[in-house]
């Protein structure tokens, strides 16, 4: 009997996961269906880009600066072993544009903007604001969720680009200002070796995918949250955990597809 009960429990968990996945995909389809009507009301999108993107700028720039500075320190230590300090610029830029920019931005985005989205939608549900919209004959998914989704999708590549740019400046500050690397070599190597398609476009694609997934997870968790304070709290935690796992897993897959032989 315990074996059967365990199997039944396993089955229930599996069914629950598939049910949530199904609900998540249905919600995504509903969100995407709202993109057309959103085109005639750009103000809704602008407000959300401000909330999701502009208000994330501080954490993104500060983090980018420190990540660039640390990269320069670590890179200089390793490169100097081989007498290749002049390659510091290319090392910092490639690491940022290909990997750290999109990935760290997505992780920070999930923690800052994703959790805020989940909490906002979850609380709107708990305080019956979403029901209220429905009863006013306004589709809450198209009116509330779609602008936030598109804002996340647009903001993520821009935030990742800003992160990389500030990181390169941080690397410059440490490499040239503190460690004495040649400034001309720092910039010229970067200019010569960073490829628009191979590096920058692939980085943009990664951040677009991460933006899509992180915002989708955040909105679904909020919309699907149990409408209680505990339910919203758990949903917010799930947003950060699921987003982080999804970003790291997808990063491996995307990196293998883009740069694997």
């Amino acid at each position, binding site marked *: 009997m315990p074996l059967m009960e365990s199997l039944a429990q396993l089955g229930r968990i599996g069914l629950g996961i598939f049910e949530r996945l199904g609900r998540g995909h249905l919600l995504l389809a509903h969100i995407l269906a709202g993109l057309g009507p959103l085109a005639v009301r750009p103000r809704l999108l602008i407000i959300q880009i401000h909330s999701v993107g502009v208000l994330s700028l501080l954490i993104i720039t500060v983090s980018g600066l420190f990540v660039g500075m640390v990269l320069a320190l670590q890179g200089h230590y390793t490169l100097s072993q081989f007498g290749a300090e002049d390659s510091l610029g290319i090392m910092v830029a490639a690491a940022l544009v290909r990997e750290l920019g999109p990935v760290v931005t997505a992780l920070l985005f999930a923690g800052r903007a994703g959790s805020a989205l989940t909490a906002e939608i979850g609380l709107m549900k708990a305080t019956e604001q979403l029901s209220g919209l429905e009863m006013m004959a306004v*589709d809450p998914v198209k009116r509330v969720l779609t602008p936030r989704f598109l804002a996340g999708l647009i903001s993520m590549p821009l935030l990742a680009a800003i992160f990389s740019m500030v990181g390169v400046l941080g690397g410059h500050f440490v490499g040239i200002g503190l460690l004495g690397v040649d400034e001309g070599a720092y910039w010229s190597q970067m200019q010569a070796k960073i490829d628009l398609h191979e590096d920058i476009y692939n980085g943009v694609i990664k951040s677009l995918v991460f933006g899509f997934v992180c915002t989708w997870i955040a909105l679904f968790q909020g919309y699907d949250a149990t409408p209680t304070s505990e339910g919203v709290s758990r949903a917010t935690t799930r947003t950060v955990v699921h987003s982080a796992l999804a970003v790291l897993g997808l990063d491996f897959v995307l990196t293998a597809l883009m740069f694997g032989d």
Partner: protein
Amino acid sequence: MRRFNGRRFFACTPSKPVDDCKTGTETIRAMPHSANSNEPLVKIRGLRFFRGDRPIFDGVDIDIPRGSITAIMGPSGTGKTTLLKLIGGQLRPQAGTIHVDGQDVHRLALRDLYKLRMRMGMLFQSGALLTDINVYENVAYPLREHTRLPQSMIRKLVLMKLEAVGLRGARDLMPAELSGGMARRVALARAIALDPMMIMYDEPFTGQDPISMGVLAQLIRRLNSASSLTSMVVSHDVHETAEIADITYVIANGEVVASGPSKEVLNSDCPWVRQFMRGEADGPVPLHFPTKRSLEEDILGEAHRKTGTCR
């Protein structure tokens, strides 16, 4: 059984074995002119709705006559709010039909359902105001969403609606700055913004001080007659609700246990109704939530199962 033009009502629906329930008669007040004024605005037939295995409604029939204020009362957890959500099409019943103004709510296409909802206002228990915009914008919201009126016209309409609920001076406040009673009045102004044919009030008096309660009751009554509305008030505040309602339904155990003119229901001899109206803790509507295990089994556990009896 439930005829309105025939002016015949009943005081208790004996779907449960309630022998001492009596039938009563009363004339309800004049109804507004309507193309289908003979038909009730909301007609519910054989409604069955379950949450898991627990029946919330098990074969419920309700009629909401046009132009009336109809109270739906019952103890907490009997599904009063659920009933409003079923009428609004936010929930789907397992069986039965709900017709609003002749349209079967659960057979409508989404577009038609939204059109119908534009003619139905709902006042949520919490007010459900959008917290990121101020009072004025909240009331203007449905007008901006569903009409192409110029800003000057929207302004006039919003101020008129706020004046009707006595909150024209509070138009610049944010929802967080309002008291509970004020928030409900703003929500009421928003609910009447599109001049609906009916308004559903979900527990409008809960948690209100006596003054706010009186103001809300007066507003509901005044709006109903001034705007030729049909109102449904879901509440367990017996006296405040019965005072303004023309007709009262009492729901318990998933069924309508009593219905009819409010005064008759209030003074009913029916044990179900009497228990609720007098606030008795136990009676036909049990104090205890149903459970499959006895108290002895729950408390004594294994020891009880072994002995088979409780000593």
